[in-house]
């Protein structure tokens, strides 16, 4: 398994009150597998995704990537090396062109110069936006922005891709196209893909559906 979560528990403190959000989750996903993580609002799915993405640390339990337990002190390094993210609101840098958005992410991950530029062009071609690579995000449609975000997540060789409601800001047709493209690329490049969603269309592209309710998988 490329990504495992063992007995993940997370509590938040509000004043004197301790609120349990995740109550002991075991989860695993393999390379090339696509998992849809579904649940109602407040069920803890985004918190769980943040923990899988090494953005939050669990109160208890371990995240294991490629057989290695994630050290809480090295979350940045793990994110650089092993993870790619796609966000609901795209989160592209408005001052950078489509290809620069991808190249900058590669720069942050440590890839520089011609190598980064070549890789950025490869992935933007892969998502079908070769002719839009010099466009600023404001000149792209919602679907195109999300494709750039997917290209950014794919850039480099991160084995795990995590997507948070990737179709929430897209219309039904575009959402379906984006999901199918995302699935095809993840499969082709043998990446694990976890999609947190409310959108029933995601089921069509997922290999497995996992439901989360009140901080537990059901």
């Amino acid at each position, binding site marked *: 398994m490329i990504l495992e979560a063992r007995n993940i528990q997370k509590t938040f403190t509000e004043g004197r009150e301790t609120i349990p959000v995740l109550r002991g989750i075991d989860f695993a996903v393999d390379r090339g597998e696509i998992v849809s993580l579904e649940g109602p609002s407040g069920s803890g799915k*985004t918190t769980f995704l943040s923990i899988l993405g090494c953005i939050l640390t669990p109160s208890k339990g371990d995240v294991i990537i490629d057989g290695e337990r994630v050290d809480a002190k090295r979350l*940045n*390094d793990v*994110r650089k090396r092993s993870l790619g993210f796609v966000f609901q609101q795209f989160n592209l840098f408005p001052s950078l062109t489509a290809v620069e958005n991808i190249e900058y992410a590669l*720069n*942050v991950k440590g890839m520089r110069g011609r190598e980064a530029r070549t890789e950025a062009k490869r992935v933007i071609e892969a998502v079908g936006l070769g002719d839009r690579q010099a466009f600023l995000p404001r000149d792209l449609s919602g679907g195109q922005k999300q494709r750039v975000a997917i290209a950014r997540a794919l850039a480099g060789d991160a084995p795990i891709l995590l997507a948070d409601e990737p179709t929430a800001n897209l219309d039904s047709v575009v959402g379906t196209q984006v999901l199918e493209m995302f699935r095809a690329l993840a499969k082709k490049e043998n990446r694990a893909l976890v999609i947190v969603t409310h959108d029933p269309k995601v089921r069509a592209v997922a290999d497995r559906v996992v439901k989360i309710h009140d901080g537990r998988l059901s």
Partner: protein
Amino acid sequence: MVDLATKSLLHDKLRFLITVSGVAFAVTLVFVQVGLFLGLMDNASLTIEHLNADLWVTSHDTKNIDFAHTFPETHVKRVRAIPGVARADNLIVWFMNISLPSGSVEGTEVYALEDFAAWNFPWNVVAGNLQDLRRGNYMFLDASAEKRYGGPFQIGEYREVIGRRLKIIGRSEEAKSFTTTPLTFLDYTLAQSLVPSELRGNTTYILVKLAPGANVEQVRGEIKRRLPYNDVFTGKEWAQRSRSYWVDSTGLGLNMYLTVFLGCLVGIVVVAQTLYTSTMEHIKEFGTVKAIGGGNADIYAILGKQAAIAAVLGFALGAVMAYALRPLIYKIDLKLVIPPQLFAIVFAGSIVLCLAAAMISFRKVASIDPALVFRT
């Protein structure tokens, strides 16, 4: 490497313009204020520097060259007798009234020597021969008088100085005092005869030129011993004392420091405010940088670079504006002195202060939770 810092800064052109303008305004303010101050200070010791005496003998506790007090002129003989003294001459500096053709009376600051040529003073003579001053009731007038006295003067014209009709036989340029009162150059004896009650048998300074190889401190010590009721300064000390008088006694220094401080404060506030607002508006982008593996240092580098760009461009614009103001300032008889050291200090200060302003945003960046990228 994609230059997110520069592209992001230039993306919002209005904000960028405001930031650069803030720095430029502060830089111009500092250049103009300090430059004017240095210009005034330059005038305060200009004649001292051009007389180029090794030692100045003054009456006791004289504050600056313009406010001279008298002492017996025979003291010069005691100075001339000291080994190591190559030349010693009396110099009178005295304010007198001058009547103008219009009928009005103005002030003039008189410099009187027996031998102007020996001291190469005034240093920039554009008409006339200084040797002629001792031949009669003659005067040299500095060109700065034209503006102050309301019109041009010609060689051969007459002016009344304390009721005595003197012929203008020469003109100098650049000879100015801190008080902006135009300078007149008279023969030493003539000056004494104009104000006999104060100046007969008296002088206001003794200029001392040392022989080659003479020890300044030894000669100074000997002059002090022989003239215990006078003060003796080196040229540098006397220039500094004259400048310090105006700085300390007029509040000019305080005014300058205060304006420089306010200029810096305005610059810092503008840069800090725009960078902080920009940080807040781009907080999700910075969260994204963290989410994809970047650390605080990556974001600090972005903010630092933006601050440095604003500093460099603001400095350049501010310096251009200050230089553009120079001719206007010269027109009102003031000088804007911007020496290379000031240029370097203001440049370094702009960078440091802009980086300091960026640090206010650093605190915000450090507290960014990358999990905010999942929030809508």
